């Protein structure tokens, strides 16, 4: 497909200008999402059919206000526009996308793009909203003043796309042979930026008549949503709704997936010959993939909420409301989004730290994200609480079990804030990155775009489950299965395996925090993914997958102190290879995953020690 493309067009624009909607409208289904070589900036490319039947490649570049890059995303936009990326042809035509209701800043960007020497087309997107507000744009005069063709579109309604493509196609081949593009581009100075602003403003005055019916909706909504107190209450309500949805709406789908994988497992066991082959396929592959995919419904619901909040324009308001509160702990307001995602899974949470410009703020967020209670901890918490915490109500209505669950969530949040505080006040002192972000106009999210983005997130999660988690699950299965117990051996087979021997060998190390060797063994497969510890405990205590029965066994075998220590361990322990792998990828080395592993392990051991010894003193031993 790529061979037949005759040229490359690149979409550049401010964040929130409708650039991605335009990309989706132009490419339809013909797009692929990948990462740029060496960095984890999302790269969206698609094929577009020109009106004359030829094909072009269309690249959607990360949103930016300037070619002076500050974040990894913006550096990609700059390097792509300047043709500095390896293996990436420089764009033949730059489509500078503008929100037609808000031209001021993007005209300056358009001037900066023109300075690269490449052909630029200014796209006035959302022209319908501008018209409704009574904005009148003299397109002819704007085009002459800017020295670049101008097209008007409504991406969400696919209006104006063919004229845009015709105008852009006419630009192919221009711009070359003028002493080479980019020759004239340099980082603008403050004087350059001021001069460009003046030019942009003069251009605006001459060609754009301001709205006769300006949008008052955003302002009125902000009066409520940014109200110092009311806004925070609304935000808490939104978060509450989101968690309710993640945990209750996802349950039926999760039950279905679990039942499906169980059925697949028993069907495979019936077909395959008995022996290790069956064990590998049923317990290793099928159970392994199933234990990860079971989180797909929760992750989809969480992402649906996050996409809704982002597309509607509310997310930047949430960052505004949370900035000072999180700033007290040394976190940036924009860290709110990654930390929120980490309640589903730290992996997408850490990937979304890319919205934070400063490396230090970003690293602080990455290091604290895994302390948020991810959904993989829930099965472990549920099991231990059911086994050891009495099902009583305090004061007649507060469930003690629910209270412990809440306490575990709170422990995660508070420890994340404390860790961020220590990092920023002890290790990286000095001022923080400025918090400056646009508060875009509110708009209704477009269902088509929402569905497409959600599909891409789901696919990214599934493919990662296949590529990263699956091999680990197989490795864990091998370690917990071999060597096989000798003939006539007593006790669970896992105790003779490599994992079992390692557990016994490590037992003295874990004795001060109250862990028996069985608990230590369960931690080893739990390294691949936290929730696997539940299945491992089941295997060790030689019971089936029935959770109620396992909880009864644990209630007999474990002391309350050991159980609480196990919970404390799980709040902190770096038990997720996928998280460490994504930290390595995002930070470009092993240093930060190792730092994360070490500090979380230290907290886990220290926390479990305090809880175990404290509970024993209070008579819970």
């Amino acid at each position, binding site marked *: 497909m790529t061979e037949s493309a005759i040229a490359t067009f690149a979409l550049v624009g401010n964040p929130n200008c409708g650039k991605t909607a335009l990309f989706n409208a132009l490419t339809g289904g013909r797009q692929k999402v990948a990462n740029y070589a060496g960095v984890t900036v999302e790269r969206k490319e698609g094929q577009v059919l020109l009106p004359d039947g030829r094909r072009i490649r269309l690249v959607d570049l990360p949103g930016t206000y300037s070619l002076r890059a500050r974040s990894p995303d913006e550096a990609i936009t700059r390097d792509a526009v300047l043709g500095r990326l390896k293996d990436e042809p420089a764009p033949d035509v730059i489509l500078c996308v503008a929100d037609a209701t808000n031209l001021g800043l993007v005209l300056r960007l358009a001037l900066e793009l023109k300075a690269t020497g490449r052909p630029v087309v200014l796209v006035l997107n959302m022209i319908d909203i501008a018209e409704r507000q009574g904005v009148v744009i003299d397109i002819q005069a704007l085009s002459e003043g800017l020295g670049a063709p101008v097209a008007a579109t409504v991406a969400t309604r696919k209006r104006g796309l063919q004229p845009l493509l015709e105008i852009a196609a006419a630009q192919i081949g221009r711009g070359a042979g003028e002493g080479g593009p980019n020759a004239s581009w340099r980082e603008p100075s403050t004087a350059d930026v001021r001069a460009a602003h003046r030019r942009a403003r003069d251009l605006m005055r001459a060609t754009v008549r301001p709205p006769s019916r300006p949008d008052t909706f955003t302002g009125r909504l902000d009066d409520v949503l940014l109200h110092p107190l009311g806004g925070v209450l609304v935000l808490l309500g939104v978060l509450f709704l989101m968690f309710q949805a993640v945990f209750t709406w996802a349950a039926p789908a999760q039950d279905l997936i679990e039942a499906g994988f169980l059925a697949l497992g028993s069907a495979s066991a019936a077909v395959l010959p008995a022996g290790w082959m069956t064990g590998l396929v049923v317990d290793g592959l099928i159970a392994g993939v199933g234990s990860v995919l079971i989180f797909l419904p929760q992750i989809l619901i969480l992402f649906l909420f996050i996409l809704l909040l982002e597309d509607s324009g509310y997310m930047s308001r949430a960052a505004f409301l949370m900035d000072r509160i999180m700033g007290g702990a040394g976190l940036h307001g924009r860290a709110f989004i990654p930390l929120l995602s980490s309640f589903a899974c730290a992996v997408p949470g850490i990937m979304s730290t890319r919205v934070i410009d400063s490396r230090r703020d970003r690293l602080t967020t990455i290091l604290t994200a895994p302390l948020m209670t991810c959904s993989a901890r829930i099965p472990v918490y549920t099991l231990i609480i059911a086994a050891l915490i009495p099902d009583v109500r305090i004061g007649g209505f507060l469930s003690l079990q629910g209270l412990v669950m809440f306490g575990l969530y709170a422990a995660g949040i508070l420890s994340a804030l404390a860790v961020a505080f220590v990092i920023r006040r002890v290790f990286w002192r000095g001022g923080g990155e400025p*918090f400056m972000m646009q508060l875009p106009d509110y708009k209704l999210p477009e269902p088509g775009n929402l569905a497409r983005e959600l599909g891409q997130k789901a696919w990214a999660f599934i493919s990662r489950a296949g590529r990263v988690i699956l091999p680990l699950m197989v490795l864990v299965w091998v370690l917990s299965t071999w060597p096989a117990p000798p003939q006539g051996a007593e006790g669970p087979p896992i105790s003779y395996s490599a994992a079992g021997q390692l557990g016994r060998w490590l037992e003295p190390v874990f004795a001060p925090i109250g862990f028996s060797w069985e608990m230590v063994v369960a931690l080893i497969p739990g390294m691949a993914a936290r929730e696997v510890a539940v299945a491992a405990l089941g295997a060790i205590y030689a019971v089936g997958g029935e959770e109620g029965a396992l909880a009864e066994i644990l209630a007999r075998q474990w002391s309350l102190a050991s159980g609480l220590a196990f919970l404390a361990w799980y709040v902190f322990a770096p038990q997720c290879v996928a998280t460490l792998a994504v930290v390595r990828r995002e930070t470009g080395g092993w240093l930060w995953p190792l730092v994360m592993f070490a500090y979380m392990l230290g907290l886990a051991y220290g926390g479990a020690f305090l809880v175990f010894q404290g509970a024993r003193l209070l008579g819970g031993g």
Partner: protein
Amino acid sequence: MSNHASKMDDGTSFRLGEARPGDRGVILRVLAPTLQAASALDPHELELRLLEFGFVEGAHVEVLHEGLLGGDPIAVKVDDMRVALRREEAMNVILTPEAS
């Protein structure tokens, strides 16, 4: 801050970082070097960022909202765009009052 106040042109100009919701003004100057080294950015970089977000001499600014704790950060309208920023950075934007 007192020594900087004396640099201002007249008694009526004020800093965006000290403005309350409802205050309006036209930007007189954007002066990053007045910053008291509280930010991680060097003054030059901060000035560029303010400029890139539309805080440029002659722009109309209105303070719309402020945060719960210490009235920080603030949400302002710069010409036609809404922007959120902290008061610390907003101290570098000097306004001359404009009637509502």
